[in-house]
């Protein structure tokens, strides 16, 4: 009898309507400005310094071109630059996707089987420690000057963080959840799909963020060694012609590829794991 009364009093039923994040002050615009003013300020300062140094010719313009010269180069050569940007973007994206798939597959093998772990880990480690730039010429010999060696290089360089984060994620499953799953009569596939994989996602997403920025490096290095298109090739051409404006324009585009792809992975992360501690903003609904 009396436990019913205690029950009623202590259970926070008044909080029934809650499950939605409390509204935060300010409109969308205000929040955007709040989030962006610091990086914008810093970026602006760097840009101002560049503009000042180049415009006043403290450093010769054939070494550091003015922002205006770079902008002019970009508008003049926009179709040439765009074409080559797409080449590098294509190599990077394909390389990244392949690295993500292969890396996840390898991580699953390692996380599930000790034998596989012993067999695969040395190879994975070897693939990581071997200097990619050193094997780039070999890849050109093997695969020619087409897309293949660039993609292979992007895969090789982006693969490792995916494997490491994937293994860490899959291994981080609460052992009690695995036991629970056994008492639920679930097979390994269901346990993987419903418990282990979602649980590994936060780790995996951090690995993918690192991997995507590395994939750009892989593609560009591949282009350095042997290519007739792509931003890496353009960079070599600009360098050969002492065309600093083109060189700067090219560097800006390379960075943009990396930044845009990184942000896309961040968006994917926000959509996939809104529940994770790193993305939480809410407060507990109950305290008892």
């Amino acid at each position: 009898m009396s436990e019913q009364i205690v029950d009623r009093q202590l259970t926070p039923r008044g909080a029934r309507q809650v499950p939605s994040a409390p509204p935060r002050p300010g409109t969308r615009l205000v929040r955007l400005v709040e989030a962006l003013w610091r990086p914008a300020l810093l970026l602006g300062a760097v840009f101002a310094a560049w503009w000042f140094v180049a415009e006043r010719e403290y450093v010769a313009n054939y070494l550091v071109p003015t922002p205006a010269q770079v902008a002019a180069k970009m508008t003049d050569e926009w179709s040439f630059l765009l074409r080559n940007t797409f080449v590098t973007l294509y190599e990077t994206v394909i390389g990244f996707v392949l690295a993500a798939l292969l890396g996840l597959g390898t991580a699953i093998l390692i996380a599930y089987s000790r034998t596989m772990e012993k067999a695969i880990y040395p190879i994975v480690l070897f693939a990581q420690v071997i200097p990619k730039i050193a094997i780039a010429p070999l890849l050109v010999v093997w695969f020619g000057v087409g897309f293949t060696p660039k993609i292979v290089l992007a895969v090789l360089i982006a693969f490792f963080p995916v494997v490491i984060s994937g293994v860490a994620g899959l291994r981080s499953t609460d052992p009690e959840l695995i036991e629970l799953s056994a008492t639920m009569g679930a097979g390994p596939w269901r346990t993987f799909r419903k418990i282990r994989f979602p649980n590994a996602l936060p780790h995996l997403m951090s690995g993918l963020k690192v991997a995507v920025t590395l994939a750009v490096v892989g593609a560009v290095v591949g282009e350095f060694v042997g290519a007739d298109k792509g931003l890496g090739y353009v960079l070599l051409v600009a360098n050969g012609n002492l065309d600093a404006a083109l060189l700067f324009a090219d560097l800006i585009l390379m960075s943009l590829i990396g930044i845009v792809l990184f942000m896309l992975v961040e968006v994917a992360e926000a959509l996939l794991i809104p529940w994770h501690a790193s993305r939480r903003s809410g407060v507990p609904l109950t305290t008892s």
Partner: protein
Amino acid sequence: MSGAAVELTGLTVRFVSRRRRTVAVDDVTLRVEPGEFVAIVGPSGCGKSTLLRAVAGLVPPTAGSVTLLGQPVTRPQTDIGFVFQRPALLEWRGARKNILLQAEMRGLDRAWAARRADELIELTGLTGFERALPHELSGGMQQRVALCRALLHQPPVLLMDEPFGALDALTREQLNAELNRIWRETGTTILLVTHSIAEAVFLGTRVEVMSPRPGRIVSTLPVDLPVERSYAQVMTDERFDRLSSSIRLLLGAGANH
């Protein structure tokens, strides 16, 4: 012979690691009848969790045998509900979906499972928190979700490993009262492990007292309290005091619960 919900005969579990051998459970014989609520009480590290895991088929016996519902236990059992000390919820799922995990993993009928989940949510006072994620819930509420998940498939046997050990005293008493009510309403056989004497006496129809390592059952005490219990009532009952003191004596004077 059969008819027992759980039967342990000379159960011994030893763990062998490189450094040493540990006898977690030593020659335990125990019989739990259907509908009983057996509370095993013992100090921390006395092997009571291992005993429960052996019943669930999660730990193989070194010697002796375990039968569950008349069948020998040789691998993880599915005719049970298991509640751990920690709620062990999926942090990306809301309360209701966490409860429904049980149905998804077993491939139960969706409509049936949904109705059943709603009943349990009502029964445990989780109404209004169906969509709340684990981190938005208090420890007590999280453990309620875990309890609902363990009960979803209407298991004949419920195994509970210090389910309320991590909760504050008030929440704990409240959940004990709820568990008593759920046990009465569902008729499930419950085997509960705890280090709280009060909890064991309050909940059990029988209390088994375990000694520290190696884990042995040193005494069996029937609890002659009414089936329906509340703390207000039980705490003033002199039978409760008498039982508690004898358990405390059995566990050695040092125990303070």
